[in-house]
């Protein structure tokens, strides 16, 4: 048994944020008896607008982007069919199941997991709320390009939400379209590339239809999270280093697993989708102290999702994988 559990199951970035960001979070503790100050929230909105290159009025804050997605479904699903892809970010799938009265998913099938855009466009005959994670979680592949987004939002009865939780890793965003496309909304998070999963700061870059519908949604953020997020966005240069390190490690892990005979999919995020012939690989890895994500609730048997950790953590995963494969053979 390894001494310490290695967490590669939640798509966190393994590196701590810079010292100044940690210090800022600490300063937040001194105001723990108070709700967050509206001026601080306003400051965070300004910084996010600057980072996203949109006017400040298009930013909606939330304690986590998953809650924002849930709120969007809660507010906008009435009278609309909720359309998603399958597999998809699981909390959103669950929220749709609980809150939407009519649902349709487009299955992404192995081996390519491509999205059939014509099929999706043809499904938009009635008012719809379309939610697509881009890159997709758990495949790591980008499903939409600009032409696809334009085709989807052409119909004003369609509201399109693109979850760009992994934007910093893919480098692909449609945020610049939001001002001219009222029916386009984008959700993002500081949980991933900003190394702030524990702070839970999410935001939307919202078109007018979303701004109107969510006008009464006002979220206070925890003081520590708010202070940390502001500090992080003042000097966001560190995320470039984070992303670079993750991508280098991601490509190294992928090459190594490939050489070991596992089928590893191309990824534009900070995780890898792996197809393995080892039965119960998730529980076998857990038994030796390595946590990876079990996809059996959304995908055929044999698929696991592995977050990219530090070099040492990734080496431990590779060794663990070899070990359970040898035991299986």
């Amino acid at each position: 048994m390894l001494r310490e559990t290695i967490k590669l199951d939640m798509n966190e970035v393994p590196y701590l944020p810079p010292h100044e960001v940690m210090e800022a979070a600490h300063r937040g503790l001194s105001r723990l008896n108070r709700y967050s100050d509206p001026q601080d929230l306003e400051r965070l909105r300004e910084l996010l607008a600057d980072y996203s290159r949109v006017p400040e009025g298009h930013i909606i804050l939330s304690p986590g982007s998953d809650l924002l997605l849930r709120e969007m479904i809660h507010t906008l699903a009435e009278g609309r069919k909720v359309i998603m892809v399958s597999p998809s970010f699981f909390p959103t799938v669950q929220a749709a199941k609980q809150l939407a009265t009519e649902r349709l998913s487009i299955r992404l099938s192995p081996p390519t997991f491509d999205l059939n855009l014509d099929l999706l466009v043809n499904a938009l005959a009635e008012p719809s709320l379309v939610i697509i994670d881009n890159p997709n979680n758990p495949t790591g592949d980008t499903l939409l390009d600009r032409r696809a987004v334009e085709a989807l939002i052409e119909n004003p009865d369609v509201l399109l939400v693109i979850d760009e939780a992994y934007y910093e890793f893919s480098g692909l965003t449609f945020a610049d379209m939001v001002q001219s496309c009222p029916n386009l909304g984008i959700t993002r998070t500081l949980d991933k590339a900003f190394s702030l999963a524990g702070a839970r700061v999410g935001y939307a870059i919202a078109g007018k239809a979303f701004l109107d519908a969510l006008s009464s949604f006002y979220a206070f953020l925890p003081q520590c999270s708010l202070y940390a997020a502001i500090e992080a966005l003042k000097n966001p240069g560190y995320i470039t280093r984070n992303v670079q390190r993750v991508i280098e490690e991601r490509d190294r892990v992928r090459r190594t697993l490939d050489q070991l005979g596992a089928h590893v999919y191309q990824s534009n995020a900070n995780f890898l989708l792996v197809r393995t012939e080892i039965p119960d690989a998730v529980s076998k890895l857990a038994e030796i102290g390595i946590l990876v994500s079990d996809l059996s609730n959304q995908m055929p048997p044999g698929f696991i999702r592995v977050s990219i950790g530090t070099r040492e953590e990734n080496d431990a995963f590779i060794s663990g994988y070899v070990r359970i494969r040898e035991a299986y053979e």
Partner: protein
Amino acid sequence: MKRAIGLIVNPVAGMGGSVGLKGTDGEIYKRALELGAKPVVPKRTKDLLFHIQNRDDITLFVAPGNMGEEYVKGSDIPFTVIGTVGRETSAEDTKRISDEMVNGGVELLIFVGGDGTARDICDAINSKVPIVAVPAGVKVFSSVFAVSARAAGEMVDAFVEGSDVTEEEVLDIDEDAFREDRLASRLHGYLLVPSVRTFLQPGKVASSVSRSSVESKQEIAAYVVEEMDGETLYLLGPGTTLRGITDEMGLPKTLLGVDAVLEGKLVGKDLNEKGILGLLRKYERRKIIVTPIGGNGFIFGRGSKQLTPEVIRRVGNESIMVVGTKDKVTQLECLRVDTGDFEVDELLSGYIEVTVGYREGMMVEVRC
């Protein structure tokens, strides 16, 4: 150097399907003939041979008469006949000839049949040489089978080109239990197959009885019954998801057969192809409702042979409804069809909406 490849065909495989007999083991074959069952294997075998590309690189050894020789004669592949058979063939012939072939130096054995044939081959040759299994039986639940005759041809090519081999399961389905509406299976053994995962069908996975699965079946049933209209004839395929629908209507259901419902009443029970076609002549508005087989995703061509290509053609692609719990559907790579008629299979290919809950659909790819 040419590879020595054997071919054995079970001539009665699949004949019970269209007449609703769920198999041809033992005396049931004679009953199938009385009911007008037609041989299934000639077309399957010809399809297989047609799709082998590396025909110049193989030497074919075939079983005599209707166990192989008859179907190869028309092809351009030279062959040598191995063994002898009487007028009526049996499982013993399959075992004896496959043993002779392997002892005579065959490197790969192709067989055309169902789970029963796979069992006989497994008993005879075990893992001495790899096999390619062409699906033609009524019960084709073992994972040794290729997804279609065409895929089997491609697997033969892969073997000739030097692919690895892997062990796959042979399941033993109790045919008497199957006819009594129970699916009783156990692992019979393993056979080696060319390691080309995409051409192999996953083995059948039994339906889940988890709470979420039961609730999901209830949701599906409630939605389907709510959407039913009084003028349409509904042909309900096999499976527990379909039984959920008849439970909702307060009707009995043949678990492993096809029943027909009209205006909330049962108008046909455990129908064979003839019975279904009779009803289709009588009613203009009709709909087939089926559920995929868990694990391998077949909606037509496995387990519900009564829904023949002719039945599917007459009902029409647009009047086919697929239902299945989300648990089951998300475990599938895709839906599959292998009706034995490639045109019908092509017609069914593409995407279809599967009802996975109350007012909840999933667009899933159908492959052949």
